């Protein structure tokens, strides 16, 4: 049972990282980023490629994060300046289009055939917890995801930049009138979202391989996690993700593997019916 729960929580931490990025970007910019999955894919490929030439874990981490920064920045510039006058729906479709472009570019360059990569820092080691055997990578994913969620949560609450980002999320016009550099806050949101997803790719890749669809396979789980946790709550995104991961694993054991997604989305519907703002959300999020 221990390995089941840990495994479920580790999967959920990946969903939570994806959800974190989605929520961060949405809260501040109002954009639902459908390309979050391709940010994760890019992080996975960056890890694969850099691990071929560089064994230093810190360097690997920095390069993966840099890819997340670069993608986040590109998307910020495209959305902020090229789609400045666009309606919300048009921007959403633009992120979807960019997602498809990135996915298909990856297919052309790398094909759909998965590649193998070892676990970051700890390789493919396993550890016994009681009578259960778990991979160290799973524990790393769980610890890493929760740490990131805590750090982001406290950063948003207790730092000047974090508070400024929350102000922009609440009301962009008022924030601008208060002297907050709105564009910079938007850029930071995109960059942080990119980093979250890229790190997710680095942590997920050793478990499942690296292939163009690697992010797509978790994107909707990320949205479910974000919705479960409350679309305005960074901490809720991670809680939602971990909860979803555990529900999935238990669903597989007690119901069956081929209805895993039915269970996940069924739980989502039930939560939305009982608590429309999500488990930790406070209010319906609507951009002003």
């Amino acid at each position: 049972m221990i390995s089941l729960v840990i495994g479920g929580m580790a999967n959920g931490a990946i969903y939570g990282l994806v959800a974190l990025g989605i929520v961060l970007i949405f809260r501040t910019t109002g954009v639902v980023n459908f390309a979050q999955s391709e940010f994760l894919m890019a992080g996975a490929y960056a890890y694969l490629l850099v691990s071929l030439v560089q064994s230093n874990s810190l360097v690997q981490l920095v390069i993966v994060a840099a890819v997340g920064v670069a993608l986040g920045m590109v998307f910020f510039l495209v959305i902020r300046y090229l789609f400045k006058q666009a309606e919300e729906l048009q921007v959403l479709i633009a992120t979807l289009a960019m997602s498809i472009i990135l996915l298909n570019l990856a297919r052309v360059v790398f094909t759909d055939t998965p590649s193998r990569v070892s676990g970051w820092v700890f390789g493919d080691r396993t550890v016994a917890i009681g009578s259960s055997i778990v991979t160290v990578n799973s524990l790393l994913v769980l610890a890493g995801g929760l740490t990131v969620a805590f750090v982001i949560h406290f950063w948003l609450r207790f730092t000047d930049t974090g508070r400024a980002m929350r102000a922009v999320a609440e009301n962009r016009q008022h924030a601008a009138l208060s002297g907050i550099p709105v564009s910079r806050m938007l850029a930071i949101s995109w960059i942080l979202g990119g980093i979250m997803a890229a790190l997710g790719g680095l942590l997920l890749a050793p478990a499942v391989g690296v292939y163009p669809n690697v992010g797509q396979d978790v994107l909707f789980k990320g949205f479910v996690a974000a919705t479960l946790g409350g679309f305005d709550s960074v901490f809720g995104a991670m809680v939602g993700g971990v909860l979803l991961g555990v529900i999935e694993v238990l669903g597989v054991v007690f119901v069956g593997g081929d209805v895993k997604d039915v269970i996940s989305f069924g739980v989502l519907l039930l939560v939305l019916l009982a608590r429309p703002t999500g488990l930790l959300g406070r209010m319906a999020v609507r951009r002003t």
Partner: protein
Amino acid sequence: MWASRRISAVVAVAATLLIAACGGQSTNQGSSTLGPGVTKDQITIGLQVDLTGGGSLVGQGTKYGVEMAVAEINKHGGVNGRKINLVIEDAASTPDGGVLAVRKLAQQDNVFAIFGGSISSSTVSALTFIRSGDVPYYASIPSDPRVLNPFSKLIFEGAALPQTTVVPDEVDFLTKTLGGKNIALMVSSDAYAIAAKGLIVPEIEKRGVKVATVQTFNAGDTDFTGQIAAIKKANPDVMMTIALPADGARVLVQARRAGINIPMVGDSAQADNQTIRLAGTVSEGYYTFWFSSPQFIDDRTGEMGKWRDAFAAQFPNPPTGVPNQWTLQSYADVYVVAEALKKCGSTVTRDNFVKQLETLKDYVGGKPGSSFSYAHPIGLPRTFTATDHQGSRLLVPVVIKNGEFKAVT
């Protein structure tokens, strides 16, 4: 005025009907009769193949095998002086994609015949359309029993062994060779895997052996924590996974890391270097089954070595994982199709093509007796009759040793 308009309209309608009626018919050109998709210079063959999606490893491998054989044939003047014009449609590894690909090949591209290079999931959905039409369909890759059942004069199966043929041999291996008494199954949602599950479970039970548990997962799933926990709880002595290589490799890795140390077997789809590449050293001792050729694909000696060299010369930068077993299968099967076309002589019609395929016995392109002596004889023999369109029946158990597939001794 009105009468002349009416006459014109009738003439126009009659002309349209006449043209439509002639569209799918053979044409007589001098002493030869040519079917749709055939001209004096070329024969158009459609290739339905999964270039994208979860079956793309299979599809890319197949495409390269077909292209290699077609290039060789065309370089040597084609079939009876007609070059093969290959039209490729991506079935995208989905049922809808399979239907769309086959429809386009048959109705828009007007091919003479279709070479089925897709996995079962994107083939089975298209079979109803095939059976209702008149385009011959030569399936090289899909192993779902529904390909040949119900029987259709139009549909042939080359390299791929239907599950009905394969399952008894696989279960013999599980129960007799490995001595399994309590067997766990891990089955993906791919169409062929579901078909196999429906056959394997009763076959195991028929031998008085217990099925410890059957766990399922969606193709493309990446976490099997729940399923593996259930399998451990069932305490099997042998475990078999029925899935494509990427899924099978993930299951293998996660099962071994979770402490499942019993003999593990993959179905024949996993007899691919991708299994070794994705699972790494964990793949040592993993069993699977091979039916693509007399030699293993990584054997660099003899005819396989020559074929590998020729492939590398023609395709210096193939995608990762290519060539693979599906490259071998499709390469060999293109020559089977070409031999039947050759035997059509001057009557290159669909009916005659089907009839000529049914005359092939123990055929291997490149072997003595084959019209294509320049082909590399790396395929297993194909035999068809008027009532049996399954070309191949041979299955060999293999095991991964020192990073390579070896025959089980």
